[in-house]
């Protein structure tokens, strides 16, 4: 039971990721109507259309004025994640997270450090985010959707078509060779999109400095360590939109120094 409690958010996250995959899969193979389509665009209960706002943005950049369904679907998703905040999609929904978490876990277990010869900036993803829109505008086709591991991986699981293994392997090797969470944390333009979108969201991790014993456990598990800059130094919210809200830091923290809190609301007793 103790280990269950210690991994509460990790387990919840896996349940969430897998449940979404299973529902999509069942939607295709068994005709379930709970969730059909895939991560690019989906329908809930055959009614509410959801769509990937970055994909729709690329389509618009490419010069295609998408159907109203798609635009509304993108807006719903956009607002949902903007309100929740952070990169909630990345940690709780995206199937690639399963791969990158596994890679990060295996590197941690084998104590393999990041490659010092290939140093990437975490800002590369913002360049790629912009580049995706520019290329879409130039070639007239949603550019990231043509190469996105997120959609290719999910399609191969949901529709049982090939190509997925290739991408899983490529991602795995890249994360191994270059950096922990190399794809998700440095390159993925979709993650960058959600980082910007969720910057002012409600759900944030709150750090209580007085409880912190500087054990550094949170740093060793965090996929976006730069967001933990205040840990051990200053009370307050982990403000960065780059935080995926994976809550792994909360799980591993033995000192109750990190917890979920509602942004803006807790401010009044914020000891600064």
């Amino acid at each position: 039971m103790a280990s269950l409690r210690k991994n509460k958010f990790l387990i919840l996250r896996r349940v969430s990721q897998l449940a979404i995959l299973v529902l999509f899969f069942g939607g295709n193979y068994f005709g379930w109507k709970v969730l059909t389509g895939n991560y690019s665009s989906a329908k809930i209960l055959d009614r509410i259309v959801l769509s990937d706002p970055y994909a729709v943005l690329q389509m618009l950049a490419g010069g295609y004025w998408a159907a109203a369904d798609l635009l509304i679907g993108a807006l719903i998703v956009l607002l949902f994640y903007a309100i929740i905040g952070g990169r909630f999609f990345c940690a709780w929904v995206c199937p690639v997270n399963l791969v990158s978490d596994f890679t990060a876990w295996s590197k941690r277990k084998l104590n393999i450090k990041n490659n010092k010869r290939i140093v990437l900036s975490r800002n590369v993803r913002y360049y790629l985010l912009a580049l995706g829109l520019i290329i879409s505008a130039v070639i007239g086709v949603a550019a990231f959707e043509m190469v996105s591991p997120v959609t290719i991986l999910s399609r191969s699981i949901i529709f049982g078509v090939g190509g997925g293994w290739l991408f899983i392997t490529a991602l795995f090797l890249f994360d191994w060779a270059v950096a922990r969470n190399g794809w998700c944390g440095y390159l993925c333009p979709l993650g960058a999109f959600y980082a910007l979108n969720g910057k002012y969201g409600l759900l944030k991790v709150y750090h209580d400095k007085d409880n912190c014993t500087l054990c550094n456990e949170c740093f060793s598990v965090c996929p976006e360590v730069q967001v933990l800059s205040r840990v051990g130094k200053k009370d307050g919210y982990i403000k960065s939109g780059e935080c995926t809200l994976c809550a792994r830091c909360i799980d591993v923290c033995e000192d109750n120094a990190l917890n979920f809190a509602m942004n803006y609301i807790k401010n009044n007793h914020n000891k600064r």
Partner: protein
Amino acid sequence: MASRRKVIENLFKSGAFMGFGGLLWGSAAGNAAETELALRPPGAFENDRDFVQACIKCGQCVEVCPYDTLKLATPGDGKAVGTPYFKPREIPCYMCTDIPCTRNCPSGALDLKRLQAKGSQPSIDTAKMGMAIIDPKACIAFWGIQCDVCYRACPLLDKALIIERKRNERTQKHAYLLPVVNGDHCTGCGVCEHVCVVEEAAISVLPVKIATGKAGGHYIKGWDKADEKRMELKEPATTDEEDIESGLNYLNEDNELY
């Protein structure tokens, strides 16, 4: 504060990175979107590039297809990755009257509007997924053997596919029963290709753009009253192509040709 030199240098570096990444990514994505030979679900854009642009690759048309006709393209298929297509020789389109694939498309890449004549209900019979063409060398009906399998399987029998009779000079007493495709009616469903009895289908469906030609505006059917009306120019032609009058008279004038 960074020096001006540093700032400019970084600017150039970022620009170079964007350029490098952009060229690499752009050419990869551009190539991936280049797919002339894919047969698309009914109600798709006429131009395949437009279809690829509009498709969000959610696969919902594939999910609702009751015959598992539609597949999603994967890397290496040579069709824009994630877009739906079908291979009639494996599973053709059986032309569901309720057109669930088109109906389920959220993006407008498939649209019922493209399946209806003005003022009437959408009908799968107006679909233009492709067009069947026949290879007379491989079609045994052209050898004089009686085979009308494709003709009988065609969902628009005697409209999209008709049988033409021709005397068989070799036997002097039989007729060839030749299948002929009528492009005005063929929906490209591919049932004919699916049922064709020879080793590799002698009748196969190609994208409309590839299967069809275009005579161009300067040919006028003199025996067709409606077509001949095009010669009565009401206002001066604005482009060379429309300049039919001068085209008609240039041989009778003394002007030099060039």
